């Protein structure tokens, strides 16, 4: 029987009514009396030296309050990078500065040169056109290999376009080389992980509001992690202490990573409001978002897989160029390294792995985490090279994976790339996939496709993900400049209802629904008696926000810990009321009872007693019922799964149609199956988008050719089939109290290789000698591959 409340129930979403009636409160819906509007004048060249910026004419335009250039912001800090990577030789990465407004040079199309503050959006925009900018255009470096071979320098002061040359694990490099040299079979593949734009549907917005009477600033911003923004902007950029700075991220219309980072516009609006003593608002256009939101992926990799003739993996070696763009975005440096190299063992027992990553500056928009962040890049390389190896050795793609799985009795399993997988059951997820994708029926479907002149192909692969990055002391050793705990305050109100304050942030993840399900189970009260506050540094304890599928595993665990403290204190109050020992108090379904007696007291009575403490052990216990917990996980969590896709290829046009897609995931315990299904659907859609359509393309001058929805092909409703998703294989996480692993990114990680494997399968079944096509597999690319 499905439950109708609590953990495991598909509870209806609390968020929905306001979103369905137009009552959502997104950042652009906030307006402060007297607010002014910012328009940023942005570079239209990718690389150039700023000779002069003349703002006199603009400043005299109607409605203009002020015009700022980089020089006007002298004295404030630059945008900080949150992860220091140490290179193969033990040296720190090159870390050039990132000014809020460009100083001296512009480094990518979209780099802000000046900002106009005016009475209206139109007046600010009109005035920006009157700014005279003289830029000496310099050659742009776009191609990563060229950037490392003496192209012009993005940052002159570091003397190279290399940020770091990272090796992992450096000590195993020679052993991996030797194993590959001696192997019975080596499969090699060169591939590109295409550059993407996150494209959350809500463009970014920042509204700075300074209150001079108490010297306090409030920033309303489209952020996945308001506390992180408060810390980065307050401590590193503007030098505003936390008690004078409030960051509010209200309803946020999707993030997918792109709203983790601290952006220049947030700092500018906060600063301009302080200097001008008026509220200052900026709303990005979509065109602006394309050249200012951090992009994702953009890796070029060569991978070698050494195998025995019977398909056992012996060693993996990868060499990757990772594009960082023009500046170091907040967590950019961690993505190609710790979020990527550590995943290269996948679901398999490969004993030797070596990962080399050279991270490169180019005259493009900064690149940072996008749904999956490093893990899709790892999965794509690994699952593509395994597929190629299976074909070369004549082994079925499902079978070769089965031969190499970490087996259920091998957990906890230490990989050669520093992770310890706590639980999993990879054969079981593969078995489930075979069932739900009806793999046995493929041959008949292929025949039917052939009868219509179409080539049908089947792609299968696995993925593993690492979520809830932690513990903080470990990630600190790896270079993280932040802790990665999460916080929760559980406030029981006097009449027994509960308010949960979390440092996580929901921008589509449904926390207002799922978090009460957890608390409801623990307290035995109705979900409707519990609400969630988040997204405001004024009402939640310091938390790290939502990304990396961490909310339930880390934030949910913090809520459990805080609720446990509530229960412990409530038991002491109940013991007092029933004149019993706290050790003898049992708590179930919202009722406290004394073990072995018929004495009981209800939840509501205990809550009221805590706040009206007339009959209360004041000498031993504080009144009130409110607890805070900070949860720092002992390890990552490791969701994993197996995916299958069937495609039809039209060889006349190169068009690919996805006929079916099935996903068998192991997320550990699941709080709300309906919401988990939705997360997987969305992730797969983004992965399919990457595989078939999406591509941020720069020309050699650094102009973004796909800078709008007219050019950048977002997946639409008619690009996708009805997806079959299943998460009934559940191996609960062993080290967090809910046994949960996280589900937000899985779909985007697992699905790109599935689609590509399926297209290659179709072409090979059709007799075409094609073993790889780089994403996106557009009709023209597929047609060219077919026609050589």
């Amino acid at each position, binding site marked *: 029987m499905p439950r109708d409340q609590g953990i495991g129930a598909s509870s*209806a*979403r609390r*968020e*929905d*009514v*306001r*979103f*369905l*009636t*137009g*009552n*959502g409160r*997104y950042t*652009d*819906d906030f307006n402060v009396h007297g607010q002014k509007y910012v328009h940023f004048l942005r570079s239209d060249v990718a690389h150039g030296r700023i000779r002069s910026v003349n703002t006199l004419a603009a400043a005299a335009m109607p409605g203009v309050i002020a015009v700022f250039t980089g020089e006007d912001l002298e004295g404030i800090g630059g945008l900080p990078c949150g992860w220091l990577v140490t290179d193969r030789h033990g040296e720190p990465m090159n870390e050039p500065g990132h000014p809020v407004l460009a100083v001296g040079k512009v480094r990518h199309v979209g780099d802000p040169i000046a900002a106009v503050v005016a009475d209206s959006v*139109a007046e600010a925009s009109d005035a920006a056109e009157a700014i005279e900018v003289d830029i000496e255009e310099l050659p742009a470096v776009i191609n990563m290999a060229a950037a490392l071979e003496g192209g012009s320098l993005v940052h002159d002061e570091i003397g190279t376009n290399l940020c770091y040359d990272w090796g992992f694990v450096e000590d195993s490099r020679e052993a991996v080389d030797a194993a590959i040299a001696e192997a019975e079979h080596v499969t090699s593949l060169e591939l590109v992980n295409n550059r993407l734009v996150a*494209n*959350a*549907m*809500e*463009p970014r917005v920042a509204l700075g509001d300074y209150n001079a009477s108490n010297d306090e600033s409030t920033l309303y911003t489209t952020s996945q992690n308001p506390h992180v923004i408060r810390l980065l902007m307050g401590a590193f950029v503007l030098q505003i202490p936390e008690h004078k700075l409030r960051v509010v991220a209200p*309803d*946020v*219309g*999707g993030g*997918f990573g792109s709203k983790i980072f601290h952006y220049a516009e947030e700092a500018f609006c906060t600063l301009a409001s302080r200097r001008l003593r008026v509220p200052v608002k900026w709303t990005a*256009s*979509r*065109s602006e978002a394309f050249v200012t939101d951090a992009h994702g992926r953009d890796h070029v990799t060569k991978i070698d897989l050494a195998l025995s003739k019977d398909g056992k993996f012996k060693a993996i070696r990868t060499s990757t160029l990772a594009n960082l763009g023009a500046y170091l975005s907040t967590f950019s440096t961690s993505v190609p390294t710790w979020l990527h190299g550590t995943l290269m063992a996948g679901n398999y027992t490969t004993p030797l792995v070596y990962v080399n990553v050279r991270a490169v500056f180019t005259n493009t928009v900064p690149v940072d985490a996008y749904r999956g962040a490093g893990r899709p890049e790892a999965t794509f390389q690994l699952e593509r090279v395994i597929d190629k190896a299976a074909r070369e050795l004549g082994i079925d793609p499902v079978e070769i994976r089965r031969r190499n799985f970490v087996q259920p009795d091998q957990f906890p399993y230490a990989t050669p790339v520093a992770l310890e997988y706590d639980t999993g059951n990879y054969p079981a997820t593969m078995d489930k996939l075979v069932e739900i994708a009806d793999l046995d029926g493929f041959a008949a479907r292929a025949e039917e496709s052939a009868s219509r002149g179409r080539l049908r192909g089947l792609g299968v692969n696995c993925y593993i993900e690492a979520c809830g990055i932690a513990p903080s002391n470990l990630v600190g050793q790896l270079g993280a400049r932040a802790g990665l705990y999460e916080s929760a305050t559980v406030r029981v109100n006097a009449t027994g209802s509960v308010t949960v304050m979390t440092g996580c942030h929901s*921008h*589509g*993840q*449904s926390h207002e629904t799922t978090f009460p399900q957890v608390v409801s189970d623990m307290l035995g009260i109705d979900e409707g008696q519990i609400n969630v506050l988040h997204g405001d540094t004024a009402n939640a304890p310091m938390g790290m926000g939502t990304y990396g599928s961490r909310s339930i595993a880390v934030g949910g665990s913090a809520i459990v810990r805080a609720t446990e403290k509530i229960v412990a204190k409530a038991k002491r109050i109940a013991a007092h009321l029933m004149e019993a020992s706290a050790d003898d108090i049992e708590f179930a379904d919202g009722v406290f009872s004394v073990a072995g007696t018929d004495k009981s007291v209800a939840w509501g009575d205990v809550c009221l007693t805590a706040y009206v403490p007339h009959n209360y052990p004041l000498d031993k216990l504080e009144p009130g019922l409110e607890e805070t917990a900070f949860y720092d996980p002992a390890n990552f969590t490791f969701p994993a799964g197996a995916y299958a896709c069937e495609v039809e290829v039209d060889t006349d046009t190169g068009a690919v149609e996805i006929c079916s897609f099935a996903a068998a995931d192991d997320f550990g315990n699941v709080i709300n199956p*309906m*919401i988990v*299904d*939705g*997360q997987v*659907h*969305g*992730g*797969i*859609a*983004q992965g399919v988008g990457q595989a078939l359509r999406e591509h941020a393309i720069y020309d050699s001058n650094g102009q973004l050719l796909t800078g*709008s*929805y*007219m050019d950048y092909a*977002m*997946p*639409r*409703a*008619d690009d*996708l089939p*009805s*997806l079959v998703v299943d998460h009934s294989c559940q191996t609960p996480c062993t080290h967090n109290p809910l046994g949960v692993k996280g589900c937000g990114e899985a*779909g985007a990680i697992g699905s790109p290789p599935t689609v590509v494997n399926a297209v290659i399968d179709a072409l090979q079944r059709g007799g075409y000698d094609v073993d790889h096509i780089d994403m996106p597999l557009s009709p023209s690319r597929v047609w060219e591959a077919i026609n050589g």
Partner: protein
Amino acid sequence: MATVHMVVNGREVSGEVEGRTLLSDFLRNGLKLTGTHIGCDTSQCGACVVHVNGKAIKSCTMFALEASDSTVTTIEGMANEDGSLGIVQQAFQDHHGLQCGFCTPGMVMSAAALLSENLTPGEAEIRDYLEGNICRCTGYQNIVKAIQGAAEELAA
């Protein structure tokens, strides 16, 4: 500046607009109906879909002046008179057809327009009709289900 008059969600309204003011901006900034969202600047995303004289229109493709003397319905006008969710809205909640909620107003308005034309749309017809509405969260699957569910409800 010029004066526009229209009936929005059953209420007569008027306002001063510039010639370049888009209907979407007039709704959001002039009337404070912020349920209509702006997700792009190329009329591709569909977050701003409203009904003008009963037809689904991307309100960023129309000047406010063009809509003068029209009857406009926005997402704020889709609930039942008692404030409860209308059939299409309720179906989106029942089938988890929204996550971040940003594309949702446009999706609901498009879905309602489709169902006003065709009470028995097949899956392919629904997907085809939604070609002008982009959702980044749901993979469209549960939006399609929601519209199928609403169609059944409306037919019942």
